[in-house]
């Protein structure tokens, strides 16, 4: 199974690559070209950087990537990668993939960024891995228009927002599974297993 990370900027991809590589049969690659990244069995949008810069790197391949997702290409979007699955962001200019209807806005809390371990409530993202406490590091959150697409919630101070969204084999998570110790690594493995079977 080819698992391709679309690398759209500077940031730590090592932990995520290693977490993905622990899944049986996963052949993990990194691709900087958004069009070439689509020649894969599973696409991963990693979670580092700022929305504007990432959207600019995505732009040449945006339509093709959206079509691939609509056609059933499994995709895991993490943190900023989840936000790129939505339409637009208050953090920066440019368009996301718009796979999930909704806008990315700033956390409505006193303490921003949210950095640290917090809950996933009502987690139903995957069948084989249940999460409780995971690591978040973000200032912006995805305001999903369709609540049925939200498969996990979390709350920071007074703001309740999607921890995870899913439609078909496209899953976005606001937290960092690759930084959430054993449970997070199991979550990544379970996603690959679920979309490849």
């Amino acid at each position: 199974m080819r698992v391709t990370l679309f690398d759209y900027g500077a940031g730590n991809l090592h932990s995520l690559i290693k977490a993905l590589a622990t899944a049986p049969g996963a052949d993990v690659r990194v691709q900087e070209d958004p069009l070439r990244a689509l020649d894969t069995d599973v696409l991963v949008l990693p979670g580092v950087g700022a929305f504007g810069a990432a959207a600019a790197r995505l732009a040449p391949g945006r339509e093709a990537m959206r079509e691939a997702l609509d056609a059933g290409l499994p995709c895991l979007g993490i943190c900023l990668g989840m936000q790129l699955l939505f339409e637009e962001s208050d953090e920066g200019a440019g368009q996301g993939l718009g796979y999930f209807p909704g806008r990315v806005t700033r956390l409505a809390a006193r303490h921003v960024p949210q950095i640290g371990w917090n809950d996933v409530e009502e987690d139903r993202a995957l069948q084989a891995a249940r999460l409780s406490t995971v690591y978040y590091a973000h200032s912006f959150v995805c305001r999903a228009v369709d609540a049925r697409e939200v498969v996990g919630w979390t709350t920071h101070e007074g703001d309740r927002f999607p921890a995870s969204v899913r439609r078909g084999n496209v899953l976005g998570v606001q937290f960092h599974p690759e930084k959430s110790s054993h449970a997070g690594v199991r979550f990544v493995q379970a996603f690959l297993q679920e979309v490849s079977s």
Partner: protein
Amino acid sequence: MLRRRIIVCLDVKGGRVVKGVQFEGLRDVGDPVELARRYEEAGADEVTFLDISASAEERQTLWDLVQRTAERLFIPLTVGGGVRTVDDVGRALRAGADKVSINSAAVATPELLTGCAERFGAQCVVASIDAKREADRYRVYTHGGRRPTDWDAVAWAKECVRRGAGEVLLTSIDRDGARTGYDLELTRAVAEAVDVPVIASGGAGRAEHVRDALTLGAADAALVAGILHDGLTTVGALKSLLNDSGIAIRSTT
């Protein structure tokens, strides 16, 4: 609810841990990768490498060390020490750091914080502040606590956040290594003044000190080093006390 964190700090030099670390009765001065992993197993919420390398040759090994650690550590890793430019931060992140702490360079060039936040996001920019008590204030020092600045700690923390820092690592020079407890007054003053997480550092002598930093000091996280490395307590024992005290922490048991 967002949990309070225990962050374990390891001093590294030339790619090796330089202070001894007591683990299961063994004293290990050695591989930071293995020690970081063992602290993850023990329940640490994050690991910080403080690079105390004195020379460029020694520092070169840091990036390789960070990469080897990131490939095996599945909790956040912060790297600090000797970071001077936006490119240094970029290199640390590409090597595998999740966050980078900046100290003397931020005082010398405050725009560095802004440059890093714009390029990499505020969540990976940690302003590291060393402060020393004076009569009625706390003065910021740089260069490992040797060089005084004109900044007051609370004012400088606010300035760091205004310029883009997403977290503040606050070390009391007076308490560092003294094991008499964190400087609660300093910690609380900064934690109440800024809207980003504050990590208390310097002074932990026993578990109650960590609890006090998170309650009376209002810190979001506590940096712990010596008392863990010397085997005086464990991450598990710290977390038990915090849990029994009604503080929300990540349970790893």
